[in-house]
């Protein structure tokens, strides 16, 4: 029992370290890599902090009014919440879209390539009322902004 527990802990630790190393390596070698491996750790994380750490290696970000989130104040149907993120920050590499109230907060990562303008729209599911958070990585800096959306009918359940 005891040895088994230790083995579990060891496995967990080495796995986590491995993922981080791979993520860091990919980030350093090719910042705009074509189809980086889908960051499972970031997408399955249960908290926004863990999700951001998984995606960017750090969860710290400064609030910036230069990131604009367009989303409804009240979403009647949580299964379809239109969200638009725009920003005039130069040199944006990645935009992360999170919904804090969801089971797994990270909704989407947008990796901007050559010539891409920071203006993306999509529709997301929101389990319940919460914040839509946009985190932008530009020139090694992390900037974020948030907007709260009230959901009357959740979109993540049967």
């Amino acid at each position, binding site marked *: 029992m005891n040895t088994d527990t230790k083995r579990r802990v060891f496995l967990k630790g080495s796995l986590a370290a491995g993922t981080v190393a791979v993520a860091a390596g990919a980030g350093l070698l090719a910042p705009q890599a074509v189809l980086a491996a889908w960051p499972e750790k970031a997408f399955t994380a249960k908290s926004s902090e863990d999700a951001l750490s998984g995606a960017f290696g750090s969860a710290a970000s400064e609030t910036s009014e230069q990131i604009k989130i367009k989303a409804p104040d009240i979403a009647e149907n949580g299964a*379809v919440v239109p969200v638009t993120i725009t920003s005039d920050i130069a040199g944006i590499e990645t935009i992360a879209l999170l919904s804090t109230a969801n089971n797994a907060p990270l909704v989407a990562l947008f990796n901007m390539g050559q010539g891409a303008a920071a203006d993306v729209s999509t529709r997301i599911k929101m389990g319940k009322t919460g914040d839509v958070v946009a985190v932008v990585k530009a020139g090694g800096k992390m900037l974020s902004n948030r907007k709260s959306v009230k959901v009357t009918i959740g979109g993540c359940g049967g």
Partner: protein
Amino acid sequence: MAKSSIKIRAKLKGGVTTVKCLMNHPMETGLRKDKKTGNPIPAHFIQDVVAKHNDAEVMNAQWSGSVSKNPYLAFKFNGGASGDSVSISWTDNKGASESATAKIK
């Protein structure tokens, strides 16, 4: 699935191309349960989306199951000329993929 499972509109205005697209996909989170049997419905969602202008990649997106069913995606990029091609392709967590190409108007 038919070839038309991705709809793309690409429009050029003032040097900026706006691309809007709709994809057909169930986008199951894996958390939902079948109402009749009570069994969880397995996750089935698009993981990677790649957008290309001619052959150069302009953006790629990585998604979770929290993107709505039949996802909508719009983005903009600088450059592009009328008649250039814009292609969108996606891959889901079951390894299926789909792609489509449209011309910039």
